[in-house]
């Protein structure tokens, strides 16, 4: 039990180390990483089961009592996020087997993939703010390398922007940590939740809240800090983009939710308007950007931004229902958006391009691929009864309950334009006849099962999450109520 809590970090870490020992043996690394990510999924589900049954779990690394050492703490939110990390890790690794070129595999793709998951899981389970910084850096450096690995021109250009933005974000985060330690004398998040109320200068706490909002906001890609995302997400191989889309901005959202529900609860009053405005603008700029694009991956990248707006909306509304909406949306979005990226990769494989103008005819030639696309696409557009609908329902209802009519209006308007974008992709890549008459349709089989299986699983999950929404909705509601009542969290950490 005790050890289970560190496994989300150790499992991918040990997998990465084994992959390093197996440097040069690509086949071995493939097996190792598939096994490792599958194990991470199992660990995540076991944690979820345990936390669901026995409440929030915490351990003190090295047996040093909180707040002196580092605490690992898993509540429902963490457990859910670790599980989904394991799932996405497994599916994207399988997809990578058939889509990442041999040279990249030879130069460390798999160990880097594993350290990325290690950093992400670490960020989800740590109870220490500085330790969070460390895991952020682990996932960031992994993502830097994954983004640049291969050294293609566009990749390098994308990577530079991505690296610079994240370095700035990190240095803001780090400076904020310095202040946190100075004014509260602690880095333990639960302890901090208590100590922050003792700080004599409210101005400094506000400054801190803003610094965290900006630092995490850059990572989450909220308005006006999102520019790096559309500039870089379309440059690496599609499997890399897919795992980034699945997890990276979401870590930013996770961190925002965590610090603003646990530590800066009081500051929410002052920052709420800012967050609401940012949420609305994030939704709008993302969806407009997508409407202007005619490149498959770039359309999807802008939609990441737009969807982050919805998640921020839930946090800004700050009611249990809204927070449940944020978490539900997070899960739904990870499944649907990653799937769309994976499908774009298959489309590129079949048609040789990501440019919508050069694509077409997929539905005629590969009707099953069409259905697999429509499921996440309509889900993203919030069409019932797919998963996205429930997320939208939760958020819209939460917004209407507290009379944030303007924001709800914006979110619904954005929903229409999301539909518009999805129809554009469908219409251009699938419905219209292919402009490439010289490229004969091959069977879908030659795409290979490693590419198709993850897509099928994700589409199936999107449908199930919609039709059998109850367990997920109930879980997100329990998660939200845990977040809104941080005393359990604090007690679990500080009790021993």
């Amino acid at each position: 039990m005790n050890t289970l809590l560190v496994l989300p970090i150790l499992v991918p870490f040990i997998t990465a180390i084994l992959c390093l020992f197996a440097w040069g043996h690509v086949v071995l690394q493939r097996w190792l990483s598939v096994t490792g990510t599958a194990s991470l999924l199992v660990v995540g589900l076991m944690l979820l089961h345990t936390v669901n049954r026995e409440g929030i779990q915490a351990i003190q690394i090295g047996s040093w009592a909180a707040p002196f050492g580092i605490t690992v703490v898993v509540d429902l939110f963490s457990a859910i996020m670790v599980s989904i990390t394991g799932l996405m890790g497994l599916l994207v690794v399988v997809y990578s087997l058939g889509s990442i070129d041999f040279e990249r595999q030879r130069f460390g793709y798999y160990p880097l993939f594993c350290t990325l998951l290690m950093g992400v899981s670490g960020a989800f389970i740590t109870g220490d703010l500085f330790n969070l910084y460390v895991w952020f850096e682990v996932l960031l450096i992994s993502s830097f390398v994954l983004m640049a690995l291969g050294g293609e021109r566009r990749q390098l250009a994308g990577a530079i922007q991505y690296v610079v933005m994240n370095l700035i974000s990190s240095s803001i985060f780090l400076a904020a940590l310095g202040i946190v330690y100075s004014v509260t004398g602690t880095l333990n998040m639960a302890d901090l939740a208590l100590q922050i109320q003792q700080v004599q200068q409210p101005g400094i706490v506000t400054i801190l809240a803003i610094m965290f909002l900006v630092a995490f906001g850059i990572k989450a890609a909220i308005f006006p800090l999102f520019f790096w995302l559309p500039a870089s997400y379309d440059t690496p191989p599609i499997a890399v983009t897919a795992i980034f889309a699945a997890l990276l901005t979401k870590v930013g959202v996770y961190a925002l939710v965590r610090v603003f529900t646990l530590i800066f609860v009081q500051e929410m009053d002052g920052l709420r308007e800012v967050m609401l405005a940012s949420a609305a603008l994030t939704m709008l700029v993302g969806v407009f950007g997508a409407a202007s694009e005619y490149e498959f991956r770039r359309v999807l990248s802008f939609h990441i931004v737009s969807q982050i707006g919805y998640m921020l909306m839930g946090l800004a509304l700050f009611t249990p229902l809204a927070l449940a909406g944020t978490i539900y949306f997070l899960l739904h979005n990870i499944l649907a958006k990653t799937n769309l990226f994976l499908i774009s990769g298959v489309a590129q494989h079949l048609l040789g391009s990501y440019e919508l103008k050069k694509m077409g005819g997929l539905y005629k030639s590969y009707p099953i691929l069409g259905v697999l696309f429509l499921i996440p696409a309509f889900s993203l557009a919030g069409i019932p009864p797919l998963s996205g609908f429930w997320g939208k329902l939760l958020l819209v209802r939460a917004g209407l309950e507290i009379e944030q009519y303007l924001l709800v209006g914006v979110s619904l308007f954005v929903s229409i334009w999301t539909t518009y974008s999805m129809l554009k992709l469908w219409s251009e890549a699938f419905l219209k006849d292919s402009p490439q008459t010289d490229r004969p349709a091959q069977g879908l089989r030659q795409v290979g099962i490693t590419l198709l299986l993850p897509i099928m699983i994700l589409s199936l999950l999107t449908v199930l999450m919609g039709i059998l929404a109850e367990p997920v909705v109930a879980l997100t509601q329990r998660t939200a109520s845990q977040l809104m009542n941080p005393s359990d969290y604090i007690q679990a950490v500080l009790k021993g």
Partner: protein
Amino acid sequence: MALIILLGFIVIPLIPLLHRWLGNQIGWVVSLLPFGLTLYFASYLGQISRTDKVLMATYEWVPSLGVNLSFRMDGLSLIFALTISGIGTLVFLYAGGYLKGDPNLGKFYVYLTFFMASMLGLVLANDILLLFVFWELTSIASYLLISYYHSEEASREAGKTALIVTGSGGLAMLAGLILLSIVTQTSTISDMFGQADAIQAHHLYIAILVLISLGAFAKSAQFPFHFWLPEAMEAPAPVSAFLHSATMVKAGIYLLARLHPILGGTAEWHWLITSIGGITMLVGGYLAWQQTDLKRILAYTTVSALGIITFLLGIGTKETIKAALLFFIVHAMYKAALFMVGGAIDHETGTRDIRGLGGLRSVMPITALGAALPALSMAGIPPLLGFFGKEVIYEGTQHADWAGLLTFAALLGNLFNVTAAGMVAIRPFWGELKATPHHAHEAPWMMWLGAVVLGIVSLGLGMVASAVLPLLQQGVEAVYGHEVGELHLGYAINLSLLLSLITLTGGIILYYGLEKLRPLVAPYDLGKRLGVAKGYHALMNGILKVANWEGRLIRHTHMRYYLLVIMGTLVITMGYVLISQARLGIDVKIGEIRFYEGVLALIIMIAAVAVTVAQSRLAAVTALGVVGFGVAIIFVLFGAPDLAMTQFAIEVLSVILFVLVLYRLPKFRTWKQRPSTTIRDAIFAGGVGLVMTVIVLAVISAPLNSRLTPYFAQASYVEAQGRNVVNVILVDFRGFDTMGEITVLAIAAIGVFGLLRLHEGKPLQRKIYRGFPSMILQTAIRYLVPILLLFSIFLLLRGHQEPGGGFVGGLVAAAAFALYGIAYDVAAARQALRVRPILVIASGLALAVASGLFSIPNNKTYMTSMWYDRNLPALGHVGTPFFFDVGVYLVVLGVMLLIIFNLAEQEETA
């Protein structure tokens, strides 16, 4: 009941298989589904119409959100369900003929079945959110069916327009439904019936009404959303017959009828619904009259008919509700039939333009019959059911407030209907036979059956009109919300009959005057004048223009401006807080500044500024180095030797790295920039600096909260066996951080390796690095290397007690190998190392992880330190943190060598 309703969804996966087995014969087999459903619903006719019974079934779906699979069958639902399944049966059959030989016939039936199941769900749902789910599904089905001929751009665009328009309305409606459920605390429709007064008194009532109506209007093609419906005529004829005349477009009307007992009866309802319905009725009729394309005429008359029903529901008396429901039935039958006929004509002759059609009754006699009966019903001629449809409308409007105006409006609307009936049923069939693109002959039975059956049913029901009364009665009561007394249908000589006669005569005159009148009114072409479709497209394009502007801006803006935006956000928000919050309480004494500290600070600042103005790379790097060393000295001065040592080492490495890497880069380029740019950047930069300075001052004015420090001072040696507290924190108290830290280093090194060795996706060869082979250097290095290695181990060992540790030790060891490489060559240094640097890194990481695992068999948390309880020679007191530090040492060694070796051996590509 739920299972039957959802049956359609269940059989969908079978349809492609059926298509594979049966080919073109699939039509009549699939038709068994709607046929069976018709029988099923018909079996409830007796129960529901005679016993006032309402069938309910509820299953939990998402109870956390109060959404249930709750169904309810009453008179209103049953009228709709029978229409859907009954007309569905005929359309399913018709499609088998119409699309015979189409390879996508299987897909077509999938969509059609999907639609029918969704539509049935919609009219039977007893939960507004469940209703919304089906509502959206019908929109999706409609989209898929409109864009069925997806090679055609017009089809794709029409589908998109339909979905965007109905979808937008749907979202407004969603907001309205959610508000309604917030107000009523339930989403079950039957639970809302009792709360009508409370809802109508609520301050959100108007919002709810308007939002829900928007959804209904968009779906039922009410003005100004009506334009999507004619565009949707790109769909195959069966789709137009089924979705876009008989059923789906009636969903909005159904919703208004369904919610009438809850929302209806107020002045707001009356004005909103009646006026929109009335306008739609007139606009639709007028536009229909100007068309020459069969399907478009039918489409606009459908708009008009939808307007009439909405108009009647808006008035909301029992007479008008009766009229609305009866007219719904009448319209569904004749319009579906006429669309099927239109499709058959198009299919057989190759044209739908009425100007090119004539005399078809001689070659398509059965189709002509199939057209004639419904058209008579449409024109309201007895004894068809359509006659009563018209009679009850006039009866309703006469007894409402504003009777004169409403009746006149209804009269106008009906007039156009009569004309249109002539246009679609007389023009193509009578007169001389005209030459058409295809040689016309009778359509196959599957294609005329539907129209003929519907025509005969209209006739039959018209002859025994009382047959529809029991069901109609239940339907009217469901909509009206109260008992309405016994209804009647029959012939009587009264004002209504007179109005009917006027309608008929006027319609006939209009029909014959058509050719002459059309050019006269052409300049006043409402279709173009109103230009709602244009307005919609202009709106979409306008928004797209904004989007494109944003897209271009984002694509073409240099990243530096984004950095500016981020810095700006930070400075403005924090600056605002700093200025507005006077409670920062900055209170610092300048205190004593020792002379050398002042000089040091000055040097750092000058060097930092020098970096910005340096004209060459070397100067800039040197200045930067000065800053780094200056910072290191500050660390020394203020009691942080470990920090200083690390900072020095890193600084040396950074300078080396810069020189190695930047060696081949071009000279510092300075682009001509407008002075304003420089000033702007300087202001931003200065702003950031100023804000940070103020923050430092504010923070250090607060009392220091050092709750943790005494604990470390106490526990460091007693519990963690180390005198160097910083090192103990690094390898024990916060060893977890360090584990992450060495991981970062390892990944960075692998990244550098990958960057240097993979270029444009292809591996680069190693270049042989010769070093500076000189005898003296080699000899010196030969002695120096072992000494350095020993020193590194010394640093490692003493780290726990004195400044030093794995990190610095690893750096020194790496320096030894690097020097060896310089003196000999990198190949030799690699040989001296014996293992690949990557394996050194892997071993280090493995050791670090493993050192934490020892505690687990002892039932302690991960990374709990374990100590061997005796002192070992040379090593002293040994415990797991020591192994951890050895791991750090190895990782640092491997990382440095991986970077240095590969930098030295890199192949230049530029």
